[in-house]
């Protein structure tokens, strides 16, 4: 399967290069203005790209959903800002973000203020850094896997009187590339992308990784070369002294 994906990637890469600069590829995130609404369920979650800002006007009590793709080796971080107008302040509501993977399993935050009580502040900042996305894990594990990630933003601890006040929310997902340190063996048959949004494939800008490349190749390769050099060095060390002694011995032996 890995080989199949590799070929597929190679083919697509070849195609892209061939079609060149004037390619008629429709970029998935071609509207630069960003999305100005959020979904209200997993099914209707608004897709955003990593690095793209998702904004929404909403009411307190709404559950806002966005989704973004994350690939193996990335450590996604979700940041959200809720701006509260005068009328929505001082309610004692706690704003929180939850991140779910493509199977709608809740993902733990390694760090970041996932929930914060608004108090009298005019804005609330929330953040959540996930674990590193792995290329493969056992089916019984809850590890983050390549695919779609859902962000849910909502307020808890609301009194009835605080419901329905207008707020604006901003969400941004970024990620840090962890690299080969997180390169595990195995790949999924397909990334965890639920097909609930027709017409917009949630996919990273440069496609899903084939799972073939990791900087472990470089490390291991360099290690091999160094080992060979060290072997040659060790060998010449013995031979070098050996020759010197044999060169010194041979005349006397004659």
């Amino acid at each position, binding site marked *: 399967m890995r080989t199949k994906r590799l070929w597929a990637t190679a083919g*697509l890469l070849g195609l892209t290069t061939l079609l060149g600069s004037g390619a008629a590829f429709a970029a998935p995130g071609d509207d630069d203005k960003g999305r100005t609404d959020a979904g209200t369920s997993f099914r209707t979650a608004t897709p955003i790209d990593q690095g793209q800002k998702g904004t929404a006007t909403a009411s307190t009590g709404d559950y806002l959903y966005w989704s973004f793709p994350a690939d193996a080796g990335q450590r996604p971080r979700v940041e959200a800002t809720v701006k509260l107008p005068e009328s929505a302040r001082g309610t004692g509501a706690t704003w929180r973000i939850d991140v779910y993977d493509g199977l709608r399993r809740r993902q733990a935050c390694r760090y970041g203020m996932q929930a914060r009580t608004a108090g009298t502040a005019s804005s609330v900042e929330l953040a959540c850094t996930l674990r590193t996305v792995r*290329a*493969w894990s056992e*089916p019984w594990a809850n590890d983050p896997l390549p695919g779609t990630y859902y962000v849910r933003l*909502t307020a808890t601890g609301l009194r009835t009187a605080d419901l329905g006040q207008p707020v604006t929310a901003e969400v941004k997902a970024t990620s840090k590339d962890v690299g080969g340190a997180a390169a595990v063996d195995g790949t999924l048959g397909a990334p965890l992308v639920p097909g609930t949004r*027709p017409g917009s494939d949630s996919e990273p800008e440069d496609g899903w990784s084939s799972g073939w490349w990791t900087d472990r190749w470089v*490390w291991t390769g360099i290690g091999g070369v160094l080992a060979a050099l060290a072997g040659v060095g060790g060998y010449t060390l013995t*031979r070098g002294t050996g020759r010197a002694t044999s060169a010194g011995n041979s005349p006397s032996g004659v």
Partner: protein
Amino acid sequence: MITRKRLAAGVCALFAALSTGLAPTAAYAADEPDDGGAKPKVELVLDVSGSMRARDIDGKSRMAAAKQAFNEVLDATPEDVELGIRTLGATYRGDDRKTGCKDTEQLYPVGPLDRRDAKTAVATLSPTGFTPIGPALLKAADDLEGGEGSRRIVLISDGEDTCQPLDPCEVAREIAAKGVNLTVDTLGLVPNTKMRAQLSCIAEATGGTYTSIRHTDELTDRVGQLVDRAADPVVNPVAVEGADRCDAAPELKPGLYSDRAGFGQHRWYRVDVAPGEELRASVSVAADRAVNNDYGVLLRAVTKHDREIVRGSEAGDGRTDVLSTGLRYPKPDDSDSDSDETEKETVCLQVSHSFSAAASGASAKGKPGLPVELAVDVVDAPDGSSDVAAFGLGRGWWLLGALVLTGFVGGLLWGWISRWRVAVWRTN
């Protein structure tokens, strides 16, 4: 040069063709709404009760604000949305509660929008009677009958229901349970606490949203936003009824399904998985009524012989819309067996939840059950992992050190051995 380029092109095209040919087919393709019969439908339900005369929205009457908002929303309605308008309390001027509580009529039928007609109809409205929210919701649900697309009711009201005992909240839950893909969004004009509670209860019961309105532009923006949301393409779930045990369970193909599960009820479904395929299932159970603070959801995949393969579980506390979990089960490809026919395994999926109702009434007895959304997908099984690290490759300074040391020791040994051999050869 050109030949080489052509060759490259041919090879790449071949790869591309192969890659598209081999890629797993989109499991949801069949569910994508086609253009016919799947147009999203929206009905705006406007309260035209006597209280709409109050002049407290930007110095204008509530009615004037609503009319202005409607005009702007009608202008901005996307082409593919079928929009209708229903009023409540618009015609009956008397005091008889019984008659007043039946006072709801369709002002503009759900269908392709003629903006001028719709605007003219809105302009004729004048605030009159009672606030029969429950009956209006029932009628609105009937108006939206038919078609495959998503349906949305936008309820704009300035007072709580004056037609008890029919609880509009229960009504909303009933209609959401009856017809799938129906959402009720509510907007409260200059609301008080009781009204907020009622309108947000209606919204919660159908997975909709509630908004308080104090200004005309808020109303315009919100209604426009809700109509736009209806136009957003989504995959709508297919209604299915799970059984209480696996033998009787319905067989599911990859897709999105909706069901209802009461309190303490188990729901069973069956999915066939061939060797070399991976089953992916996720389930969300929505809290469409007031529920107690602590709750959980469990999704289990078991064999026909009741052996648990894998489970997904989640628990939570506090306010929530849904609680969800998922699982995946890759069935290994047993290519050792030479039998030609690939034996599909029947996997039973069990969904259960531990929500409990906080309020009394029919909803507390679990009727209708809580909405369950089940997504089932079958994809290629993953490439198993034979090592912790990718391809068993190494990484890091310790690796380099170890390799250099081993190489060096190996070189030394080799050198010594060959020296010793030369020495032996010489002495002979």
